[in-house]
């Protein structure tokens, strides 16, 4: 069972938390400037997400956000939720919820034509 919660996985999580943070820190200001170009109505808001490269960049943002959120919550559960079964259940529950959110994000973005 050495690898079930071994040090390497901790390092991977640590690195992924930082990589996702870096992507979000770059994406958010750029997207904010991009979004400020248009007006504040439905057509303009919808039009922002029509180009394929925007869909891809926003979806990557969703991946980064969900991975970052899951790693952070897992860290909090490890610190404060001590009964192992409850802790693993919470980590699993949020894994499922966030995986569903990712599929939902794909559906939202690619339903726009």
């Amino acid at each position: 069972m050495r690898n079930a919660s071994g040090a390497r996985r901790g390092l991977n999580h640590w690195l992924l938390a930082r990589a996702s943070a870096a992507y979000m820190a770059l994406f958010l200001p750029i997207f904010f400037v991009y979004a400020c170009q248009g007006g504040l109505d439905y057509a303009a808001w919808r039009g922002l997400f029509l180009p394929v490269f925007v869909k891809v960049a926003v979806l990557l943002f969703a991946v980064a956000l969900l991975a970052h959120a899951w790693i952070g919550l897992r860290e909090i559960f490890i610190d404060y939720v001590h009964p192992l079964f409850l802790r693993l259940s919470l980590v699993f529950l949020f894994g499922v919820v966030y995986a569903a959110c990712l599929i939902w994000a794909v559906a939202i973005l690619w339903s726009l034509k």
Partner: protein
Amino acid sequence: MTQRPFFLNLLRIKLPIGGVVSILHRATGAVLSLLVPCLLYVFSLSLESAQGFVRVHGFLAGGFGWLLMSLVGWAMLHHFLAGLRHLGFDIGYGEDRATARATAWGTAVMAVLAAAGIAFWVLP
């Protein structure tokens, strides 16, 4: 042996500013994580139809929406700036006491000021 006080009375524990910024980084991260599905719902509503967009816009333009956006805005700004501070530590910047205290104050103050700027100048 010195007698050191041992207590976990949250009202009497005095955290240094770095500790305050750190626990707020964690608390804002937890709240933002729990909000992700709600934000995704609002996002989908705003895009699925013109009526949905009007509903979202109407809600966010109201008093409760303003309060919510201001608080979530502060949480995002604080988490963002405190995260940049931690990335600095990772590459060895600002680990000495004086710099760490200065960047902690900078993080806390800038997050509040920027959130106030958004709440009172951008949103209305």
